[in-house]
């Protein structure tokens, strides 16, 4: 990052210069008037130091820049930042004071203190700061400020500033797995055992041989026992597309970082990262959508590159409560394929969220809502005599919303890490495999 200082820096005299000149003049004047050589002797250190110090003056302000790691760090891991301070003058600095401003989520050791150093002519000094990144996201490091003092503390430079940059911290991924099958799948590839019979590895049963069955499917043990040809009946393996929809329209709770309590956005982002990682490692395609005043979309893809893209995408997530209006029509259903499983991570703190989820369900999408409010919903609030009552009313209203969502076919599960989706996926798969009634 380049130094932002202009070449027209200047140095200003300090109060010490005025004091030295004042004392020298006063002592010499008194010495002359009173004929006292001792007063001249008292003035000598001041006069000599000023004369010696000002024989060569610096002309340029100190330089400063910040070096930050290019790679993203994991939440809770250490990050490094280096502040480089330089002296471009042929005169040394008695003191250069550098101060770095940075995000409170970066606990850099002594990062909140200024650093003082002396710099010889042309010398560059580095201040290495290291500390834990306490929360996911893009954390600002900078600006860095530096000023210098030269000529025995008689001259003070202007303050040089550099803008700095961001340290990228990706969220921790809590353990997550979903052992249940996907309710819908999109193609006859992949690793998910479906409820449909086909060429897969999952044994569904043994049945009599029929026309079209392949000979390699013959179960010889059962055939010999029954003296009739039997074949192993398998379920087909299929891949799936998962759309993780982050409802960050509202924030609740105060984030304590990796070692503290999680806010709603923290839970949402970490859960999204875990879900994306799990399904991408399975070989599925994962897309991401953000439901906020400024909706964002990450196209569906699979593989390691998509995991990195998803993590990068998640690092930009911010709560937008009060920052903008939600989109009028919610999330456009055309952004989500009909065969995709939509996992909506939502605290359900506003009617817009429930409307959006219901709209997707009515459009024929397979939607699972994961409640990210968690313990915050049950936390008692201290207040007046009406607070408790208001909180109970609010809980009833929220439970009512969740019930309404279930009525339109959206199961709601509280985020609990591994196994969060198992129960709801099992129910949805059973419903998807059941025969459907048609009305003519």
């Amino acid at each position, binding site marked *: 990052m380049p130094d932002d200082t202009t070449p027209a820096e200047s140095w200003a005299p*300090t*109060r*010490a210069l*005025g*004091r*030295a*000149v*004042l*004392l*020298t*003049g*006063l*002592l*010499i*004047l*008194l*010495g*002359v008037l*009173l*004929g*006292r*050589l*001792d*007063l*001249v*002797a*008292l*003035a*000598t*250190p*001041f*006069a*000599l*130091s*000023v*004369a*010696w110090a*000002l024989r060569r*003056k610096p002309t340029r302000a100190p330089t400063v820049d910040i070096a930050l790691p290019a790679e993203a760090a994991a939440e809770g891991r250490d990050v490094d930042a280096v502040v480089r301070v330089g002296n471009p003058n042929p005169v040394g600095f*008695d*003191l250069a*004071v550098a*101060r770095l401003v940075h995000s409170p989520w970066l606990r850099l050791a*002594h990062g909140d*203190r*200024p*650093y*003082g*150093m*002396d710099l010889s002519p042309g010398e560059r000094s580095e201040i290495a700061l290291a500390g834990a990144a306490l929360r996911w996201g893009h954390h600002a490091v900078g600006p860095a400020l530096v*000023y210098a*003092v030269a000529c*025995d*503390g*008689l001259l*003070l430079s202007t303050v040089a500033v550099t803008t700095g940059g961001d340290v990228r911290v990706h969220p921790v991924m809590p353990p997550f797995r979903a052992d249940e099958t996907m309710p819908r799948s999109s193609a006859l590839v992949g690793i998910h055992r479906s409820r449909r019979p086909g060429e897969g590895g999952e044994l569904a049963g043994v049945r009599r041989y029929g026309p079209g069955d392949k000979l390699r499917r013959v179960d010889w043990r059962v055939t010999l026992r029954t003296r009739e040809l039997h074949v192993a009946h398998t379920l087909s393996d299929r891949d799936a597309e998962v759309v993780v929809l982050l409802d960050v329209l509202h924030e609740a709770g105060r984030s304590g970082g990796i070692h503290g309590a999680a806010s709603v956005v923290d839970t949402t982002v970490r859960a999204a990262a875990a879900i994306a990682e799990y399904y991408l490692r399975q070989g599925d395609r994962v897309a991401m959508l953000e439901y906020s005043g400024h909706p964002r979309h990450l196209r569906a893809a699979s593989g390691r590159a998509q995991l990195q893209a998803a993590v990068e995408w998640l690092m930009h997530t911010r709560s937008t409560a009060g920052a903008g209006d939600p989109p009028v029509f919610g999330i456009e259903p055309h952004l989500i394929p009909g065969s995709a499983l939509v996992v909506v991570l939502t605290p359900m703190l506003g009617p817009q969220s429930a409307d959006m989820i219901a709209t997707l369900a009515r459009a024929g999408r397979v939607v699972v809502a994961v409640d990210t409010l968690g313990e915050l919903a049950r936390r008692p609030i201290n207040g007046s005599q009406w607070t408790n009552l208001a909180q109970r009313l609010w809980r009833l209203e929220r439970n009512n919303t969740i019930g309404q969502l279930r009525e339109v076919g959206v199961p709601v599960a509280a985020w609990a890490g591994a196994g969060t989706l198992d129960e709801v996926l099992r129910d949805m798969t059973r419903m998807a495999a059941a025969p459907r009634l048609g009305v003519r």
Partner: protein
Amino acid sequence: MSGLGPDLRTALGGIRSWVLYLVSRARRTTPGPALVRLVAAAAALGALALAVPADVLSSSELPRTAVILLPAALAVGLFPRTRWVSLVAVCAIGGWLVSTIGFGDPVHVGRVGLLASALYVMHAAAALAAVLPYDCLLASGVLFRLAVRVCGVLGVSLVVGLGGMSFAGQLPQARSVVGPIVGSIVAASLAGLLAWHLRRR
């Protein structure tokens, strides 16, 4: 009385927050800046003590004098950015004149040297303390550089100033003439030097 309670509480709250602020500042203070300020305060105390008439220091007035000198010197360390440092230096010079003229203290070369050293150390330490944040993590090179600079300046100055003073003291006939002449030459040189420096900017 009813109105006094809230006012008193407000005042106590203000004092409490002020004390908490001071405590937090004291906790954040680092050794380097504290040492520089301590040196400035100690040098100020030394300069004031050397400037005070010897009779006062040896008499029963010492505690009363200390009550005045100690806070004045301490303030130099606490407020090095203010004009208080200049004021203390001027007071020390005034005290020196009062001691030598009013109280008839003899002008010993050693005492003049100590006073000059104390004044300069106070000035140099206060100059650094004025630009040094109290919570700064300081490289040891800064203090080493300051110490070397002060020692160098004092070494040369004491040799030149006290040597010249002693030499002139050996010339009783010229005593009244040498002082004004040397002083005028130094004053003119200094004025010319400063003017040259200012033009160079």
